[in-house]
């Protein structure tokens, strides 16, 4: 049976069409989830896409993290359902407490849109199709993408192998230890600032490296089924 992967739309979500396309390109069925939904419609995994949910008023991702649909997402994520947060989605997962740390204003204070190199450093539900150490290219586009956490948290993330993606060159946003993406302790919940869903077709992006995240989760789901 085809795996069903949910893609959440909050008011102000922008990259939901892109995330759904990436899910389809990987061979899964994309299921639209609405911010007001009380359940996850039986999906096997969830993508929280990029954008400016609720205008990102208050703090990026803060309002979305408390929206109705995020209740079941947090619950399912804690129980091991694969969840991927991209950009604003990463901010939302941090705000929701599924991932540690926070994303703050870029150190240059400007929005940065650029193709960046990432090194895959951990084998997770969303990166199993890559080999650890592999370098990939995907677009980064954010104004509040600087990953920060206290030193103890950063040390723990490193020690537990939860730094999933690291910028290959100094982080364009000043992220601590050049961290671009991290995972939960069980490697099922992953958040990253760059946009793998914009790197699934050489026609519209830097290449197809980003598709690997979506094929990874599909492999996991198919293997588990």
């Amino acid at each position: 049976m085809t795996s069903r992967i949910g893609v959440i739309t909050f008011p102000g979500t922008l990259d939901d069409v892109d995330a759904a396309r990436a899910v389809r390109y990987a061979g899964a069925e994309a299921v639209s989830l609405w911010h007001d939904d009380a359940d996850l419609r039986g999906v096997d995994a969830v993508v929280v896409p990029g954008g400016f949910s609720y205008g990102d008023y208050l703090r990026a991702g803060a309002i979305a993290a408390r929206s109705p649909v995020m209740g079941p997402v947090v619950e399912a994520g804690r129980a091991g359902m694969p969840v991927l947060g991209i950009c604003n989605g990463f901010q939302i997962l941090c705000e929701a407490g599924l991932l540690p740390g926070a994303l703050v204003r870029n150190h240059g204070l400007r929005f940065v849109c650029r193709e960046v190199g990432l090194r895959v450093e951990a084998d997770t539900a969303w990166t199993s199709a890559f080999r650890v150490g592999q370098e990939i290219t995907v677009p980064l586009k954010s104004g509040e993408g600087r990953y920060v956490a206290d030193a103890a948290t950063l040390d723990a993330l490193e020690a537990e192998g939860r730094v999933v993606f690291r910028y290959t060159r100094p982080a364009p946003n000043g992220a601590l230890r050049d961290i671009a993406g991290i995972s939960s302790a069980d490697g099922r919940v992953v958040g990253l600032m760059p946009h793998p869903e914009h790197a699934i077709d050489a026609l519209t992006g830097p290449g197809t490296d980003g598709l690997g995240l979506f094929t990874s989760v599909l492999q996991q789901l198919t293997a588990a089924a």
Partner: protein
Amino acid sequence: MAVTAPPAPGGRTPTLDGVTVPQGPAAAAAPLQSSPPAPSSVAPVDTVEHAAATPGEPQPHAALGLRDEEYARIRDILGRRPTEAELAMYSVMWSEHCSYKSSKVHLRRFGDTTTEAMRARLLAGIGENAGVVDVGDGWAVTFKIESHNHPSYVEPHQGAATGVGGIVRDIMAMGARPVAVMDGLRVGPLDAPDTARVLPGVVSGVGFYGNCLGLPNIGGEVVFDPSYSGNPLVNALCVGVLRHEGLHLAFASGAGNKIVLFGARTGLDGIGGVSVLASETFEDGTGRKKLPSVQVGDPFAEKVLIECCLDLFRDGLVVGIQDLGGAGLSCATSELASAGDGGMHVDLDAVPLRAADMTAAEILSSESQERMCAVVTPENVDAFMAVCRRWDVTATVIGEVTDGERLRITHHGRTVVDVPPRTVAHDGPVYDRPYARPEWQDALQADSVAGRPRPSAPGEIAAQIRALVASPALAPRTWVTEQYDRYVRGNTTAATPADAGVVRVDEASGRGVAVSIDANARFCQLDPRVGAQLALAESVRNVASSGAVPVAVTDCLNFGSPEDPAVMWQFAEAVAGLADACAALGLPVTGGNVSFYNQTGSAAILPTPVVGVLGILEDVARAVPHGLGEAGDAVWLLGETRDELDGSTWAGVVHEHLGGRPPRADLAAEAELAALVAGAAADGLLSGSHDLSDGGLAQALVEAALAAGRGATVTLPPAPGLDPATVLFSETGARMLVTVAPGDEAELARRCAEAGQAAARLGEVGGDALRIEGVDDLPLADLRALGEATLPAVLG
């Protein structure tokens, strides 16, 4: 700002989610009441009755920008003095910005020169919110460029942001989904102190709004020139996509149909923005309003409004629709009513407000952003409200279409406006302002750069190429474009620094469009007629460079004061030149705008007619990549090179010179070149391309090499009698660099010969340097570092 609505009169009941539900059939369009409960804090209302009874009451028409004779005409039309609210409406709608009173007589030329054949692809043209072009397979594309110049000087971030917001709503009003934006920016010299305020603010505003809307920014221009110091130009373009049957127009028909205002609440921001801000030069400080004149944008509200509108269109709930932009409700109600088949009644008490005690004139003039106005049949109102509720969009029935031909507006139950809507929206004054060729024009044209030294030694030429690469005129705009999202929605297949932005319209077939905006104001200063034609030529060439077939034009005509006969002459010349050139190329102008009064004191900006061209690609996967192709491919130059250095970037950068005559505008050659490239692209013959424009062949080679990350070894094309520097720096039009795989060279040569297209093989792609015959080698790493350093060195 405190968000308080006045007590709800007339049976209006705000619900918790902000959607106002009409109570009963007569609720929204409440009949005139004889003794209304006017709030005590509101000044006595200047009703129609009161106006009729007090003909001698002095009115501030001059402060509102109306001339004595214009005011007299309003009194003639109404048969009495206008009420305060009517005066606000007329003054704002008869302003230069809204009425095109100084430009109308010249703009007619576009209509006069547009043939039926040119209109064949148009589903909607000039006069609508934006032109709509058939792009095949049942798809249509709407696109338009508009200025937001004056607000962007006063408050660069918000001015530019709301400029994007405004043009996006124009596109939405056609029934389209906005899919891309572009921005044409012109500011003072890079190192001028005010540029450090204006440019970063404008770029952050364009980026903030466009990024938050989820619209890819696919290209544009950034131009530095002293004439834009104090007069920055912010021109924003939006592209929208719709199916043919999804087309919506702005008209209010069918008596009994409801007028629904939806989106943001109406506040005190932007009042007077149109009539005062857009129509006065900055030196003159009189007539300033005490209220904030520049509107404040909320892109989140607009994003939600876009999705809400698309759902409303999908469900067939909209009879007519109009965005609220300049002149706010004054414009929306009078335009909807005058385009319809009846009258209209609007009740201002129903308008959701952000501030207490707003007067009728303020409500009508407010330019609060993110608002739309729709005409909805009574049976669809509930469904309309339900869609708005899903998106948390405030929606309110504020009136209805009526029998008769009057636009009647009530406030606190009294009639404060009662006018024939057409007199407000369309029958504004028309001026045939005096124009005269400036006396300095001859001297300027006589002052050619021909006498100035040109380099000849290989090292000297290389040094000048490097100077051009590093100049603010030509340095890469990465500092700007890195602040714009180009990926969102996943349909962008080319963006800056490509010659044209390309977006896929249909994912299944790959059908898409290419768009470019261009102007060379230096050429326009030398000869506005030819300069405008060169702007069109360059834009056509950029679109053609992608392999697309150019099909339609939008324009944004930025000029100084129309009250200066020299400026008016520049405008008349540019319009005539552009209209003739469009006719020669068979491209209809589908819409655009005019921005006058871009001047400080007596110093006007360089005449700046920005031309946008839309082209069609049957399959974006077959678009020609920007830059040089693969290593080993042959580099060809299409087109002839003449000695045309006057007005060039070389003359400006190397000699700080502007004089002489611009290059010839050879439209036939442009059309032939575009056709040849489109044909070759469709057959997959070209591995890369780049048009020649600012900086000539030298700069085109540099940019093409940097885009590909590959060098080239080239000779110069045959150009009898021309020295190498002239061949490298001349800005002759109708030229393009293309690359072809070795196996395809013979076919390209055959096609060029058959078409009579001048073409020369220059050399081959490869290596990590640009090796030009007679010029010292230029390592790519060097060139890249040189150019990329220029903007950050000043802007941080």
